[in-house]
């Protein structure tokens, strides 16, 4: 990777605690955006955004359609929409059918990010009980992007990271403690 233009993190059951643990360690001047896509219950309030914002000095924002991607910002996929990225580095939302029983689907976002950023991105898959994310990480790998997976031994629900590791060779298998250091070093 010559330059990291985006990090996209996907997770399901057991991922929130990983995020709460690792976000405080992220460099507040991170020179790329962090996009978080979690399986979550639909709801009007933005508890998740507030919860994560309390743990970091980076700007945290739930995505509205057409928001532009900016560095040093953590974007949260809104519930009940798929999150996609346009070639002009803006977000698109999509209320179409669930994929892998999920909306947002990690595969949809990973694939869309891979399409735009190619080798200049990283995808990180966290804890979960579903196979969503594996196909998307594969596409990230095919495009030359970095594939990062939570160490299944540290995952509350290890199915999702273990499933991905069976099918893809990861560039790094990380414990939550190792994640901030690794992400901060993605700069160059």
């Amino acid at each position: 990777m010559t330059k990291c233009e985006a990090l996209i993190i996907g997770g399901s059951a057991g991922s929130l605690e990983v995020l709460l643990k690792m976000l405080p360690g992220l460099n507040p001047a991170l020179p790329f955006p962090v996009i978080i896509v979690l399986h979550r219950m639909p709801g009007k309030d933005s508890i998740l955004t507030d919860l994560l914002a309390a743990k970091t000095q980076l700007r945290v924002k739930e995505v509205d359609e057409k928001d532009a991607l900016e560095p040093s910002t953590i974007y949260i996929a809104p519930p009940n929409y798929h999150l996609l990225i346009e070639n002009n580095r803006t977000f698109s939302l999509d209320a179409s059918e669930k994929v892998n029983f999920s909306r947002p689907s990690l595969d949809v976002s990973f694939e869309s990010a891979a399409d735009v950023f190619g080798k200049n991105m990283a995808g990180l898959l966290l804890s979960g009980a579903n196979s969503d994310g594996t196909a998307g990480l594969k596409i990230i790998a095919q495009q030359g992007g970095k594939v990062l997976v939570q160490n299944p031994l540290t995952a509350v629900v290890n199915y999702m990271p273990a499933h991905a590791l069976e099918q893809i060779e990861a560039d790094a298998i990380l414990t939550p403690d190792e994640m901030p250091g690794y992400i901060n070093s993605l700069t160059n």
Partner: protein
Amino acid sequence: MTSEHADEHLEMLLSDVLEIYGYDFTGYSRASLKRRIVRLFELDRFVSFAEYRYKIRTDPAYFKRFLEQVTINVTEMFRDPAFYRTLRTEILPRLGTYPFIRIWIAGCSTGEEAYSVAIFLKELNLLNKSLIYATDINNTVLENASQAMIPMSKLQLYTENYIAAGGSENFSDYYSANYSLGKLDDELRSKIIFSSHNLVTDNSFNEFQLILCRNVIIYFDRPLQNKVFRLFDNSLEKFGYLALGTKESLDFSPTAKNFERLKGEKIWRKISGDDKM
């Protein structure tokens, strides 16, 4: 469709579809449109883009399938119950002061939101003086919508939504169960006019007090959104309401100056009526 040529192929297809069939997708956001077009290519097992393109260009029956698969028809009754609660407690009662209520559901898909609005109008004793125009670009979904059938598998979700939105009756009073389908009341159906309308190319066709267009403009690029907002502005009476999806906004459009936003929900009220374009 290999990914390095996919963008080029996509643009070729869109110009074919416009030239041959008159459907203009060139103002649609590309990421989602591309995903659906590539998905259909894979689903129908085309071996090459050239074959896919030829089929779409020359086979109107296949184009019909293309249109159905590429436009998004996911909807539900009382979608986002908090929005419907506001509609029921604040917006519809205010429309009750008019002698006749005209509502436009733009991009109605299979009609679930039109029936939801009709149910709340009925509960507020306003249905008899209301007319709902429900329009979509896709004729197949309009045919489905006019059948007034809901799959039994959706009934639990719809009942939960209805209760969360503040419905005052038993939701089961509004349909009769028949094997795997529930048939909605004829009275609801009688107040809805389903018809074809393309937001991209068609004009205003009436004046309304309320326009609902939820999760439609997310698929449009900014210039097309602005065009559609102008159409809505031209189709709303002064002091009428425009309701959008939970993540959509009128605020970035030049039309916003004619509207003020209600607190909380994605609902705007038209406050200026004389500077039509």
